[in-house]
């Protein structure tokens, strides 16, 4: 349940403006890949192109190739809905559905897609997903209460449970901890470590220590100035990027000399 992603010469445009330029990289299965870089450098935009979520933004389009185990996400006849069923996403701010209970939130991907399952199977999915998201013990007695009643960290783990209930191949996380306190952040980082056993994980983060702690591979994005497109500067094993990067800009950013 984990696929590899190959990106070749990817450009992302918002209307006429080129937001991301010529990204070529490979994301390995069963690993955590972190995107770091200053604000506005296109890392979130690039992340969204990996499950075609950028199409939600009016005027956004993509040139280039993204292969999910050899299958082009942007090939003719590809249905973005099917892509997103394989490539799940967790957002910056926890966004459980306010009209649904905790249980219904976990099952949202299944019920909203009109998949009919027997009650026992549903219960099993709820328990497995919540256990996987390290939330089961905290909510097992209040599964029918609204998901919006949980704390921020719990809500974010609920969103992770909701994403993995769909059993995606890849899980994209767009700054999943930026709205959370350090303890919830730690819980989610532990969780990321466990989830990579089953999924390919890509995480955008502003927190360099977090990238160093959780990721196997790190990609550094940078921007030459406002109005110019974001570029992939360097990608490599996290150990190498954080100790002996090849490029000066990477070293400057990581050592806190800018950004």
């Amino acid at each position, binding site marked *: 349940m984990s696929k590899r992603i190959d990106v070749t010469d990817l450009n992302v445009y918002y209307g006429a403006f080129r937001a991301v330029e010529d990204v070529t990289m490979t994301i390995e299965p069963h690993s955590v890949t972190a995107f770091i870089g200053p604000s506005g450098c296109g890392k979130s935009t690039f992340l969204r192109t990996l*499950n075609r*979520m950028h199409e*939600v933004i*009016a005027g956004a389009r993509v040139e280039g190739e993204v292969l999910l185990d050899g299958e082009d996400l942007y090939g003719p006849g590809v249905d973005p*809905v*099917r*892509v*997103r*069923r*394989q490539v*799940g*996403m967790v*957002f910056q*701010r926890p*966004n*459980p*559905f*306010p*009209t649904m*209970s905790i249980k219904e939130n976990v099952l*949202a*991907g299944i019920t*909203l*897609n*009109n998949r009919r399952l027997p009650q026992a199977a549903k219960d099993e999915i709820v328990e497995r997903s919540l256990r996987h998201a390290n939330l089961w013990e905290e909510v097992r007695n209040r599964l029918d*209460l*609204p998901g*919006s*009643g949980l704390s921020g960290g719990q809500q974010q783990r609920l*969103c992770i449970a*909701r*994403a993995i209930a*769909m059993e995606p191949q890849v899980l994209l996380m767009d700054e999943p901890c930026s709205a959370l306190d350090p303890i919830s952040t730690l819980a989610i980082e532990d969780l990321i470590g466990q989830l990579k056993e089953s999924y390919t994980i890509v995480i955008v983060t502003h927190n360099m220590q977090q990238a160093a702690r959780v990721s196997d591979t790190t990609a550094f994005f940078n921007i030459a100035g406002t109005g110019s497109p974001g570029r992939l500067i360097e990608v490599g094993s996290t150990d190498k990027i954080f100790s002996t990067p090849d490029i000066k800009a990477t070293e400057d950013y990581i050592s806190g000399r800018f950004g």
Partner: protein
Amino acid sequence: MSVTTRGVRSTTLTAGRLPRWAVPAIGVGSLALAYIAVDLATPGSANPGLVVALAFVLHLVGVEVSARAVEGGRQAVDRRAVNLVVGAFLLALVPLVSLLWEAINQGIARLDPQFFTYSMRNVVGAGGGAAHAIAGTLWVTGIATLISVPVGLLTAIYLAEYGRGNRTAKVITFFVDVMTGIPSIVAGLFAYSLMSLLFGPGSVFGFAGSVALAVLMIPVVVRSCEELLRLVPNELREAAYALGVPQWVTILKVVVPTAISGLVSGVILSVARVIGETAPLMIAAGFTASLNNNPLAHPMMTLPVFVYDSIAHPGVDVQPYYDRAWAGALTLIGIVMVLNLVGRLVARRFAPRTGR
């Protein structure tokens, strides 16, 4: 560090404060003073409106002066603003309370069981009732709602979810705005001529009235529903898309349920907006003294038209007609109030649950 900037002369944290009873006392004093002054000017027949207006001015001045003396300029400005706001609120309340009072006072006389069970068929003078008009109002407004809600809600969904600022959406928004400004009599004429074209001249029946009301109601429904759908956070839509949920299912099962309480109250408010329309119904639905439960044939009486007709064309003995008119007006107010209460209950029932 300078301590003499703009009136701040000391660094102490305490300041003079008017006692709690001061403002009410100034109010009572102003009222007494105003009454005496007006009574002196026009002995024996003091105009209450003039007394209250003068008392309000005296109160403003009194509070201003005493607050400035005891508390300082900033507090005086604050108290002046509070007085003006409360004054404006009370002024706005006057017509509302007066209207309710008058309607209850005059309408209660005929608000008996007979009023709700009898029509005006073969009634001359006292007796009779508005059963035909109540039934007509429910029919006409009900059908108008059945037409407007699907059309209006779907238009709002298009504008808020699919259109998002494209050309078609802009054109639709423009015409919806134009529709909001259509005089209601024009809507009545439109419905009447449409029905005359379709079913021959002089086609006056309940459904024609519903069409006229729907013309007035659709833009209101579109506008309020569109605003409410836009209030649904984009994050929820993205959450659903990221789970591989198609857009129409996202709208149906995530966006609309999140906004449902507001949508319901928006629809009910728009019903309340058109239920009192008189002019278009006089043209399109007509007048009758009999109960007519078939909206597709023959004129159908409605409450506003009933009220108008009773006042405008009373019989020889005027009073029973006036009494029935006031009872009809009171019934209409009652229906609108019940609609609002139901709307609130429904809104609370459907509101997103946020209990911790």
